């Protein structure tokens, strides 16, 4: 007789929960979209096709630009030694720490038409108007290149660090010169890393919302198009647009995955990475160092500008190049006015709640998938990873539709407008982050450690708290901190699902900008940036 194991029942339960929050809303939207007259409207309107096409080409160009910046940087920092290499190497990974919205407004304050640089040029050349307008596709691409080269930089460096120096020596011993070694050995070995970075960049660019929302102007991509349609109240059309975006995302992922190949580096095991070569000629060394530091300043400039703007009280800075007054007024208002403190607290508790639930679900998944090897393990892993494959806007609309009606028999409840909907949306986005971190950590965990604990008389709870969790801590902390920071700075889901009572920081930043309270918006951004950096720093600690 085959008795279903308790772990199989638990796996079925977990699968149902994950399916309910992750895939069910997508199916609801898909079914609803197929069944409306809006489908015709979508097909007939050139504006829709233009937005869809804009999403695709912006994403592709973003990949190219990010690769063009990130890959050479990775080679420079991994292979050559020059003064300041280590510090700079981590500094230029900085944009990844920032919530996208913060990066975007920092850009606005620095390069925008009334930003720091435009003003300086205007004053220097005595121009009537600002020398440029930071708007449209070019502005979006600028922000994307700035924030997404980090993926290529980090992935390429990781790939290079895994290269076995003896493989390069073998190529040379077989008569390959540097060029041949690069193209016939290094690039093929790096391919999985490069494709991984390309996928991440493509997905991030496709789902990007803040940059097109702030800088797009009349130029619409699909994410901003969807939100605009939803705000106009045309729900059926928003659903069709959502499905179209989801299809593009999935198609893009599938095409990119075909080029990935196997992770051959892993199959070959550990090698010794080539040591960075010192640059011999002093002039070249100093040139590299100067360029490196110049680059770091360029990359840090938006954040410094943000900090500066946050110190300028309301209405104090009009036409001067440098602000005439600098003080902590904005911060004081942030923490003393109840109406401004509120979004901060909202964001904190909603991010914390969603992270805790995502960690618990990922722990359960790790135990069931890795330890118990349950029958449903592939499905559970797929459900955990799925939210990563679809833009956040897709989930936001799907949740808004699914949990906007009361139909208990369909497992649909009215959550829209309650305090539960945003944490739920954050949770869905957090699952791939905590899931990946915790599953990877579980896979590295030697099962005999848990067996040793059991043989020494430790029950399940004691084994979990004294042995398993301490061992999983690095992966768990990394996943949880990424999830928390993503939820804290989220705008994509928030802008669709927030209510005035539950408004998060990102929404407050937008409304402050709208009423020209730039100082307050910048102060919010700085706080968000500091909290994010702090959380990620704690999460990355070994």
């Amino acid at each position: 007789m085959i008795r279903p194991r308790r772990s199989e029942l638990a796996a079925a339960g977990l699968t149902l929960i994950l399916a309910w929050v992750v895939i069910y809303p997508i199916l609801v939207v898909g079914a609803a979209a197929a069944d409306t007259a809006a489908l015709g409207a979508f097909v007939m309107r050139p504006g829709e096709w233009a937005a869809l096409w804009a999403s695709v080409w912006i994403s592709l160009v973003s990949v190219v630009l990010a690769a063009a910046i990130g890959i050479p940087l990775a080679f420079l920092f991994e292979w050559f030694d020059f003064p300041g290499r280590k510090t700079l190497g981590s500094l230029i990974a900085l944009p990844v720490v920032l919530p996208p919205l913060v990066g975007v407004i920092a850009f606005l304050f620095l390069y925008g038409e009334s930003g720091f640089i435009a003003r300086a040029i205007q004053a220097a050349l005595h121009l009537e108007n600002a020398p440029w307008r930071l708007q449209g596709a070019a502005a979006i691409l600028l922000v994307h290149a700035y924030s997404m080269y980090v993926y290529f930089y980090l992935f390429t460096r990781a790939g290079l660090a895994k290269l076995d120096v003896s493989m390069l020596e073998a190529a040379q011993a077989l008569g390959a010169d540097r060029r041949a070694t690069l193209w016939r050995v290094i690039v093929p070995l790096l391919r999985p890393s490069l494709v991984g970075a390309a996928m991440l960049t493509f997905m991030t660019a496709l789902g990007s919302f803040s940059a097109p929302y702030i800088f797009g102007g009349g130029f619409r991509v699909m994410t901003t198009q969807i939100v605009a349609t939803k705000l106009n109240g045309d729900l059926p059309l928003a659903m069709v647009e959502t499905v179209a975006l989801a299809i593009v995302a999935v198609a893009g992922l599938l095409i990119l995955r075909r080029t990935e190949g196997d992770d051959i580096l892993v199959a070959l095991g550990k090698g010794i990475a080539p040591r960075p070569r010192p640059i011999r000629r002093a002039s070249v060394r100093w040139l590299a160092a100067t360029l490196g530091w110049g680059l770091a300043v360029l990359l840090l400039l938006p954040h410094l500008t943000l900090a500066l703007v946050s110190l300028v009280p309301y209405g104090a800075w009009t036409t001067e190049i440098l602000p005439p007054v600098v003080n902590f007024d904005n911060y004081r208002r942030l923490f003393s006015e109840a109406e401004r403190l509120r979004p901060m607290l909202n964001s904190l508790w909603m991010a914390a709640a969603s992270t805790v639930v995502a960690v618990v679900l990922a722990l359960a998944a790790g135990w069931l998938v890795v330890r118990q090897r349950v029958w449903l393990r592939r499905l559970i892993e797929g459900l955990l990873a799925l939210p990563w494959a679809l833009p956040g806007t897709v989930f936001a609309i799907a949740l808004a539709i699914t949990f906007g009606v009361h139909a208990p028999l369909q497992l649909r409840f009215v959550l829209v407008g309650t305090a539960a909907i945003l944490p739920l949306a954050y949770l869905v986005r957090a699952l791939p982050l905590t899931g990946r971190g915790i599953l990877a950590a579980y896979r590295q965990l030697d099962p005999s450690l848990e067996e040793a604990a059991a043989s020494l008389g430790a029950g399940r709870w004691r084994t979990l708290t004294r042995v398993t969790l301490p061992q999983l801590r690095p992966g768990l902390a990394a996943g949880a901190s990424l999830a928390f920071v993503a939820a804290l700075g989220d705008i994509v889901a928030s802008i669709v699902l927030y209510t005035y009572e539950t408004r998060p920081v990102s929404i407050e930043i937008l409304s402050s900008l709208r009423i020209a309270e730039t100082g307050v918006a910048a102060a919010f951004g700085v706080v968000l940036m500091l909290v994010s950096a702090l959380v990620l720093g704690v999460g990355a600690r070994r």
Partner: protein
Amino acid sequence: MTAPFLEIQAIEKRWSHDVTVGPITLDIARGEILALLGPSGSGKTTMLRLLAGFETADAGRIAVANEDVTAVPPARRRFGMVFQHYALFPHLDVGDNVGFGLPKSPDRDARITAALGLVDLAGFARRKVHELSGGQQQRVSVARALAPEPRVLMLDEPLSNLDPALRERTRHELREVIKRVGITTVFVTHEQEEAFDLGDRIAVLNQGRLEQVGAPDVLYEHPANLFVATFVGRANVFRGNAARALGGNGKGILVARPERLRFSEAGLPGVVRERRYVGAAAFFLIESDDHQHFEVLAEPDAARVGQRVYVEATRVIAL
């Protein structure tokens, strides 16, 4: 013979349609050290994990001191285990590793100290696990397994991670500790020398089945079958005419250890093909006229390569 302390009755684990371990029946006396010896894939580790409770048996029964523990989870079985890679908790220091299985009580520290003293690591309690050498880690894992005073001690390839020079010394120290504590012990190994040196009795496993159980000399001199004869110690296998020439009746197989063969005036004829010098003696590889190959252990200068020789046996095992 005293009543068995650890009883294994017809225990069986079915991994798949054609991979099964057992049924195996085995009794182990109190204070005895039993070696589970076999090639990889023979099911010896599965047996150990069944005993520990990490795997559940599909049939059969395990009892300790007349208490059925077949369904008792590992945490309540009170069987100590030393893992192949030691499984020391990297986030705890040596003392906390050893104390992990001990209840919170006033004498906890004293018991940790005693357990560490037992393996000659007194004063190591506050060391980090990764600061220890491989041999020290092995001893910590023994101390950790013994500290809660388990009923049975189990060791999974306890010496396989040590370098050969250290292995022999550690083996003797390990046997001494086990005998001093007097604990009933089961350990897994794939090395005959280790099994002989450490075990009171040896259970030979092959393809999931128990081939023979016995003291080392019994296995060596009276192997129950060809597998045991060839897996335990060096063995020459003779068939047909060659077997008859060495005194067999010509029907079955004849097994002779290299040291039980000697060069002589008459007997099995052959040609020396190779000589392997090992110091005190040499192994001579002989090819008989019907192209059977076998080894003779003799004085280093007993024969030359290419020489025609006759071989006789002082003792043979008929199977």
